[in-house]
């Protein structure tokens, strides 16, 4: 956990309402961040919005960290107006990270919407390490996709409206991968409904994996207790003040398959 003033080196639109921001934050970049971790950005120093904005790390290269964000409200729209050369305060790296599955298992990365950024980074690392894996990306419409389908690289896209890739959710694609592949291990990040469906599918086929989830956060580092999610089995001690809930910001955002209760 470091507070650092970052220098914006690029900020551009990469798909409908999706932006990619690159920031020089040497201290955070060299703090051994891992895919799954996130940062808290102080988008504006005014107090119209008192809180920072949590964003998953989408990659780190040398002293630069990147995020990919969707403009949905006040802070994210304001973030999209920032220019290279401006500075911005960042706290990070925060939260836990995906842990690499046991040797021999085949990772299947399942991303929905802005759940993609951390998995893109994981995908990059797996590719570098020459580990065979799948990447399944779901979005509402084709305009939100900025990664290209590539069957040779095992990259599959889906859209809710059928405008690009497979029509429907990511689940049928995941199931077809399960059908033809042994020893797979799932990494999923996306909206709660998707995570719940992925977890159901994993249960059905008795497959292990990790889910990265979101929640509303006031701090991002354990002092507000605002970011709780319900555990299925609440016996495990953690950073939350009570065993029923886990803190997304410290016990997560990555949880083991089966750890969380959705619904």
């Amino acid at each position, binding site marked *: 956990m470091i*507070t650092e003033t970052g220098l914006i080196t690029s900020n551009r639109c990469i798909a409908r309402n999706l932006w990619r921001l690159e920031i020089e934050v040497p201290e955070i970049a060299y703090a051994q961040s891992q895919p799954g971790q996130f940062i808290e950005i102080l988008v504006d120093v005014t107090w119209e919005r*008192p809180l920072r904005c949590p964003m998953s790390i989408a990659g780190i290269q040398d002293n630069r960290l990147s995020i990919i964000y969707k403009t949905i409200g006040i802070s994210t729209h304001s973030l999209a107006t920032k220019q290279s050369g401006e500075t911005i305060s960042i706290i990070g790296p925060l939260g836990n990270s995906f842990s690499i599955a046991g040797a021999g298992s085949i990772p299947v990365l399942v991303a929905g919407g802005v759940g993609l950024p951390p998995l893109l980074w994981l995908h990059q690392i797996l590719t570098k390490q020459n580990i065979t894996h799948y990447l399944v990306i779901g979005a509402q419409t084709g305009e939100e996709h900025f990664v290209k389908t590539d069957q040779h690289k095992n990259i599959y896209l889906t859209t809710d409206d059928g405008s690009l890739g497979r029509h429907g959710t990511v689940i049928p694609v995941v199931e077809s991968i399960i059908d033809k592949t042994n020893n797979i291990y799932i990494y999923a990040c996306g909206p709660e409904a998707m995570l719940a469906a992925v977890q159901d599918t994993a249960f059905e086929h008795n497959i292990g994996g990790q889910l990265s989830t979101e929640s509303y956060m006031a701090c991002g580092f354990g002092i507000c207790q605002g970011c709780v999610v319900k555990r299925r089995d609440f016996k495990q001690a953690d950073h939350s003040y*009570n065993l029923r809930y886990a803190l997304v910001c410290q016990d997560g955002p990555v949880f083991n398959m089966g750890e969380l209760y959705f619904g």
Partner: protein
Amino acid sequence: MADLSVKIGSVDFKNPIFTASGTFGYGTEVSDLTDISALGAIITKSITLHSREGNPPPRIVETTGGMINSIGLANIGVDQFIAEMLPAYKFFETAVIVNIAGSTVEEYCQVLKIIDAVSSNIAGYEINISCPNVKEGGMAFGVSADTTARLTERLRKLTERLIILKLSPNVTDITVIGKAAQEAGADAVSAINTLVGMSINHLSRESNIFTTYGGLSGPAIKPIALACVHKLASSLEIPVLGIGGITAIPDVVEFTLAGATAIQIGTANFRDPDIGRKIVFDLVEYCKQDKIESFDSLIGQVRVFQ
């Protein structure tokens, strides 16, 4: 260097910059991000007799200039607090005030008794009678002068340490509650806790907070807090601790001028957990520039027109 120390009851604090309950955990969580020894005091998350799971999510939402929370007094309970936190406080170079909540007068008393029996490292207790997010206890106490007096009297008998009643702004006249606390023996009052607020997602048409209503905090409420502090300071003899939307030196000066003996930083910690230390630093500078010898000479010095 200017004298920043302040006295509350019989306790001296090295400076008037405290952190507010529920916004700084138990003081042990953010040692990476700040140096808590700079602070005048930290006030712990509310402690109850048993560990509380708190309210279901969503618990947090931002509003213009503020935020609503409905944590629901999630806390580790008094036993775990004694086992894990009190020992850590031995090594703190800043004072610790333990915030206590309960659903019955009995519960408040029990928690205080248990802590008071084993602790030698704490400056006193802040009594939360103003949490708007839980059904039992909390605000039900804080809106009645009678209950406030009854509770304060009972607690007063149990300890020599500081007893600070934390008041709710969700009342017709906060000075009535403040006076009840004073007469029943409180050493100080702190004001304000959060205001009852609501937020709706206009797209999904759902409440943004599981419990429908939550507590509004942050700069948005600062004018309300300042009015409460000024009213309390003008009608009570005991010190008032000011809380509500404090983010920087001008806010600290304003609360002090309004009558606050010390101030507490809440929501702003979430944006910058180092903010308290920075404010203490700035306060030294401020006093130097304005040639102020003792910062407490500013308490209540606002010039009003009528």
